[in-house]
């Protein structure tokens, strides 16, 4: 199978990285910290999110270790609660939400639409600083005692019954939220206003469509969690009583406001992944994505519907049963666009010319895991089934299938796919394929047993559990250690490739996007002259002609 690759590298003896690129246009810490170049900001984001990922991942490792034994002898209940709160808060707000938009989106959106930069470069840098400030608040809260509310901050627990650093944690998320808002505003304006001549909406890569949908959610949903967190902070500091049942407040109102953001945020975490998958599937099948418009509009449909379904997190929490009916119905509707996408990606491969490079392997893993995550999501969206399944390990497994199996696989696919564009060098292909397989196996071993645990009723967030659940928990922990290897491996070989990787050339995958038609790594200004687009997205015929012309002109 190793022969099966689409890769076309320049002759390594003569090839070298371009003399001028965004990486070496300026030097020094200041040139990075004060940069307005969207590509450099993307790299800054990459480092900071990976940093937070390691924190969240370490917390996860301790959680799994503790669950090896039913008695939870490794640590105290309190420590365990803090660890899963840290894991949830860090992974959701400081890894999954920013990872794809802020890293891949920042780097690629201007390149893909033929712009020199995002619309507001200064705001872009500001958003990174806000993110870092929010992260610093969070770290402060963690180091000075942590918080044990879980990432959902359920009132009145978070307002009146815990004595940990809830305010620090909430403040961190509040500030990081503004970073998301600015990123969203920036992307929407960029996509609307800075497209190259000829780049019509229906010539945009599907990547752009899904990031556009993501940005809509950023802009419209994030402020609602901001206000919910402000109310929590006010409640804790001066006791205003809006969520306090003892004073006539309704604690469920907090959940309404919280999930009004946090459900759409789930789509923030998956939509960019869908964009990446569209690009990768097209490139490695050498085909235009099957049903371009359907995929494009399903992204927007997901973004719109995602605002109508939030209360499905509250079916058993004492909301009105009739209201639950409405929300369940909308949940069923939001599942349809995802199904459409899955089928379209699969059929893109039909009559393609498929190769199995690392990004494509990650894409297979995405399609499989996301389908399972999505289907279990439908189970949870069904009112009667939700009663038994919610708040158990079933839901834990479900959202890890979507978030980790889906989003992180997609992110890895994207990272490998555009790594040559970002750095100018290839990662080691054999190691890449190995890591992709290890991740897939490790992931399933970790989270599949949790579906069974969940159906048997093991509640989530339990520090100790009845002994009959032990075997499956041990399996899960074993899987987690394989998963850890699967994450460490790319970190190591990607770092290695920065210096020793093969020189990639401008278009190693022979892909069609505008970003591949310029040198890698790109210039600070991206394009020497504003490109004029006269071809559809994923037009491999156009690419073949172009390559032919280049050969002729050189010859």
């Amino acid at each position, binding site marked *: 199978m190793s022969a099966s690759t689409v890769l076309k590298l320049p002759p390594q003896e003569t090839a070298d990285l371009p003399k001028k690129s965004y990486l070496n246009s300026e030097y020094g810490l200041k040139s990075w910290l004060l940069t307005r170049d969207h590509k450099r900001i993307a790299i800054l984001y990459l480092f900071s999110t990976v940093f937070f990922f390691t924190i969240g991942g370490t917390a996860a490792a301790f959680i799994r270790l503790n669950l090896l034994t039913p008695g939870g002898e490794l640590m105290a209940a309190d420590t365990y609660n803090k660890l899963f709160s840290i894991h949830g808060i860090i992974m959701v707000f400081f890894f999954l939400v920013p990872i794809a938009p802020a890293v891949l989106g920042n780097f690629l959106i*201007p390149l893909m639409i*033929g*712009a*020199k*930069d*995002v*619309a*507001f*470069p200064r*705001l872009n840098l500001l958003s990174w600083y806000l993110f870092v400030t929010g992260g610093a608040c969070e770290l402060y809260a963690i180091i000075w005692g942590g918080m044990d509310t879980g990432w959902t901050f359920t009132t009145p627990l978070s307002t009146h019954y815990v004595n940990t650093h809830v305010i620090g944690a909430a403040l961190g998320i509040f500030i990081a939220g503004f970073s998301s*808002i600015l990123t*969203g*505003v*920036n992307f*929407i*304006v960029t996509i*609307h*206003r*800075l*497209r*190259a*001549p*000829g*780049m*019509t*909406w229906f*010539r945009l890569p599907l990547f752009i469509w899904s990031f556009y949908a993501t940005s809509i959610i950023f*802009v*419209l*949903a*994030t*402020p*609602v969690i*901001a*206000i*919910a967190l*402000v*109310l929590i902070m*006010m409640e804790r500091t*001066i*006791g*205003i*009583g*809006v969520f306090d049942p003892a*004073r*006539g*407040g*309704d604690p469920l*109102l907090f959940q*309404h*406001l919280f999930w*009004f953001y946090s459900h759409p945020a789930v789509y923030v975490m998956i939509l960019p992944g869908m964009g990446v998958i569209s690009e990768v599937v097209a490139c490695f099948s050498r085909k235009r994505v099957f049903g371009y418009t359907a995929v494009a509009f399903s992204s927007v449909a997901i973004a719109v519907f995602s605002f109508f379904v939030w209360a499905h997190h509250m079916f058993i929490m004492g909301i009105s049963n009739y209201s639950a009916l409405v929300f369940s119905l909308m949940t069923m509707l939001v599942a349809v666009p995802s199904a459409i996408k899955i089928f379209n990606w699969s059929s893109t491969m039909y009559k393609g010319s498929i190769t199995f490079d690392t990004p494509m392997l990650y894409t297979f893993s995405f399609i499989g895991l996301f389908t399972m995550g999505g289907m279990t999501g439908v189970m949870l969206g069904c009112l009667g089934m939700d009663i038994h399944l919610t708040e158990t390990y079933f839901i834990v497994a479900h959202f890890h299938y979507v978030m980790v199996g889906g989003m992180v696989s997609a992110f890895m696919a994207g990272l490998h796919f555009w790594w040559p564009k970002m750095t100018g060098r290839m990662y080691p292909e054999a190691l890449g394929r190995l890591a992709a397989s290890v991740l897939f196996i490790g992931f399933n071993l970790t989270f599949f047993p949790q579906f069974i645990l969940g159906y048997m009723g093991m509640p989530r967030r339990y520090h100790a559990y009845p002994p009959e659940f032990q075997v499956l928990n041990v399996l899960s922990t074993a899987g987690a250690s394989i998963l850890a290897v699967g994450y460490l491996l790319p970190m190591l070989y990607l770092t290695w490739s920065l210096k020793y990787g093969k020189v990639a050339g401008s278009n190693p995958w022979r892909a069609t996007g505008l970003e591949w038609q310029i040198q890698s790594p790109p210039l600070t*200004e991206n394009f020497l002259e*504003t490109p*004029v*687009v*006269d*071809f*559809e997205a994923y*037009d491999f015929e156009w690419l073949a002609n172009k390559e032919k012309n280049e050969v002729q002109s050189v010859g």
Partner: protein
Amino acid sequence: MRCNPLDSQAIAVPATKSEIVHEHSPHLEHHFATESQQREASNFGMWLFLLTEIMFFGGMFTAYLIYRIWYYPAFVAGSHWMIIWAGTLNTVVLICSSFTMAMGVHSAEIRNRKLLLRYLIATLLLGCVFLGIKAFEWHDEWEHHHVPGLNFSINEFTHVDPRYPLDKPLPRDMAEKTQDYFSLYFLLTGVHALHMLIGVSILLFIIFHAWRGAYTTGNMNFVENFGLYWHFVDIVWIFLFPLLYLISRHQ
């Protein structure tokens, strides 16, 4: 399948001769092709930011609506302690400031520096007046022990209000719920005043630059966008005023 580039609808039209002149305009940032593109972009960005503001206030309005339905008598009683003349005056002040702001943007459009400065300073003063009156009201509420969490007392709701002798005193359980009204009152007006405060600070900055002639030489994006912000803050107040001050004054 191929399209002629001339069919395209996208915006960044390649620089034609007339625009090459603008290319070196000092206001044009490097990544925009034309000034009108830059202006459109910043305007659109500002609107998107205002959307987030709508949703930010939206969360509080939702809370307000729910508790108002639940605890209507408490909300009526709480509303009767608002100083109606101060609220009305503040509404008028804010509308005036919106008008002067709109006129300020207009003066920037016609590139009249003096007029622009005059209107901006008027806006600034009106903004400060608004904050002053608001501070006076808050002080009044503090005196009456109406600040939840800090010095709240339900005394004045369980007894007959001298200013509304027809009002019946609230039973204890409902009087407790006036806290919810005042929590939301302070939250909404507080966040609104915070927006005003931010607006006033930016206005100072703008006045300084306008004095140096920054916005009357063709690049008025900043003033225009600030105008949008200021009007938005005005709109929020337009809703806050009837919702907080005017619940059943007739009773």
